[in-house]
């Protein structure tokens, strides 16, 4: 008899505990799934390493990245380069500077350009797209007209090849690091705007929106309280993926000579551009910064893809 009641008690305990075991909000749930994803962990580790490198780079760099300390050993006109050796792990660049130090210090600029450009594109793009989406959700002639005007401008931006647009902006603004950030950021604006507006439109027809309307919830509240929060996840994923493209595009702009005018200041894109001239004799000088760019971009892409999966409501259990 007593064993039976014990059993029942235990059963009750079990059923009680499973109820609280399930996760919390969308973000808590997404975080839980991110932690289980190998892709996310690899991406996060790569990004983490890159960020740490960018922060501490200037202090751990063994030599001054701008100083030509081994001037007597490199002769570009005679194709004499110095490869990896004990004191210079990655060898010397074409101006006899320590390649390893330059890579370490250059990480900071590359990261800065990526983040600032993406933030710029994300903020303006989300504002534009969000306002257009909200205007459409609110309905009415005015909202539709606003959406039409804004989105046609965005379409025009999207119609230009992104690199061409960036080059144009860089050419207008002149050579500087800020130029690179702005140029790369502006290119991202239409992507974010279209994405957020599209997501809001898709959400606007969902059952819960109709249900909220059926209970008399005001349109403004429906647009900002219901539609917008549900439309954010694709935009956040895009932001992560954009960091990768921003880094590559910033490198491309630097490569084209539209970046920081002070060529002595190390930046991966510039380093890649400069190494091109000596690619026959010292191919590794191009490989190092290229690998750096590829690995970081890959890190952001992996994390972005993992976030896309974690935030996808269709995959949620």
């Amino acid at each position, binding site marked *: 008899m007593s064993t039976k009641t014990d059993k029942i008690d235990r059963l009750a305990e079990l059923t009680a505990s499973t109820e609280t075991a399930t996760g919390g909000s969308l973000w808590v*749930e997404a975080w839980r799934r991110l932690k289980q994803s190998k892709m996310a962990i690899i991406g996060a580790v790569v990004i983490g390493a890159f960020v740490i490198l960018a922060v501490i780079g200037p202090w751990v760099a063994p030599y001054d990245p701008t100083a030509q300390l081994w001037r007597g050993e490199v002769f570009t006109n005679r194709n004499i380069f110095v490869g990896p050796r004990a004191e210079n792990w990655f060898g010397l660049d074409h101006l006899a500077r320590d390649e390893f130090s330059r890579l370490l210090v250059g990480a900071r600029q590359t990261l800065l350009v990526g983040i600032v450009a993406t933030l710029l594109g994300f903020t303006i793009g989300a504002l534009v797209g969000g306002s257009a989406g909200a205007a459409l959700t609110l309905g009415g002639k005015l909202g539709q007209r606003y959406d039409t005007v804004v989105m046609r401008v965005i379409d025009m931006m999207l119609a230009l090849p992104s690199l061409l647009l960036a080059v144009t902006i860089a050419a207008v603004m002149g050579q500087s690091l800020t130029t690179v950030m702005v140029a790369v950021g502006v290119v991202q604006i239409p992507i974010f705007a279209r994405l957020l507006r599209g997501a809001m439109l898709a959400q606007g027809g969902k059952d819960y929106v109709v249900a909220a309307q059926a209970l008399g919830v005001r349109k403004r509240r429906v647009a900002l309280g219901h539609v917008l929060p549900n439309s954010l996840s694709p935009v956040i994923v895009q932001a992560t993926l954009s960091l990768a493209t921003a880094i590559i595009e910033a490198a491309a702009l630097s490569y084209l000579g539209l970046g920081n005018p002070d060529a002595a200041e190390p930046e991966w894109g510039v380093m890649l551009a400069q190494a091109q001239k000596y690619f026959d004799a010292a191919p590794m000088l191009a490989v190092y910064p290229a690998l750096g760019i590829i690995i970081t971009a890959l890190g952001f892409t992996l994390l972005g893809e993992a976030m896309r999966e974690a935030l996808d409501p269709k995959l949620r259990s």
Partner: protein
Amino acid sequence: MPLLSVDELTITFAGRGQRDARAVDGVSFDVDQGQVVGLVGESGCGKSVTSLALMGLLPGRGVRLGGRAEFDGTDLLTLPAARMRDLRGTQLAMIFQDPLSSLNPVVPIGVQVTEILARHRGMRGEAARKEAAHLLDRVGIPDPTRRLKEYPHQLSGGMRQRALIAMAVACAPRLLIADEPTTALDVTIQAQILELLKELVDQEGTALLMITHDLGVVAGLCEQVNVLYAGKVVESAGRRALFDAPTHPYAHGLLGSIPRLDAPRGEALRPIRGSINDRIDWADGCAFAPRCDRYTMECLTGTPALTEPHTPGHQARCVNPVLPEGATSPQRTEATG
């Protein structure tokens, strides 16, 4: 005077370069204060569109509304959008089919309930939270204070539907429209939800317009039943009358196609042939004729009228109605109203 009086409601969808599609073709029915009225029919017969039209939730473009739908003396179909928004939630409320997709997935239940309290009753902060917990408690959600903090995906299907019902009755509406509220739920939960709806209707005197394809739901809940076919009411009767003597061949066929425990062993179900066809127009005769066992050439001469073939108050739109045994020959009296 009935609370809601729908008179010759027509809903036409006009697509660019397409033939107009008439989803609802002259539907009339009444809902009295505190009454439970069923709107029954298979998918595509116009039930859900009717409910959306009554709530003013159909998109403005591409939809033409005709007829009248008087709610307490005001025509819902011509009401300005702003006035309609004020009515929704306070006078009219609606419960939808799928409770998961009808709740915002990224917002806790509590916010979604208090939002309505804030909108219509001006309640905020602690008072709103208290009232929300009280509402959840009333629809039978255990531990309501904890549930308020949870997200829709953390609740079970039945609990989600209860939460939606709580939101719908938050401001004590006079008419509740339930569009297949139990279709997405397990059978046991269905019974609980129906029980809850019945209880709320009994306690509050709320009128309920029950839209369903499930005759079992009708049998358990509705006082008056309207059977829809291809956008028209083909039979309208009290619940008992309909189940005792289904008169329109369609209603007759529907009841005949339900599996029953008390049917003789080995008896096969009698399904209705074919499926609904929206290309058929009532103007060319009875839209059900192609699927009907009883049709004659007479069926194809104009729209059949709604008549009372055997019992007063039991209307059917058929020239060859199924008459209950022992009934006198068809009287063919024109139905009034």
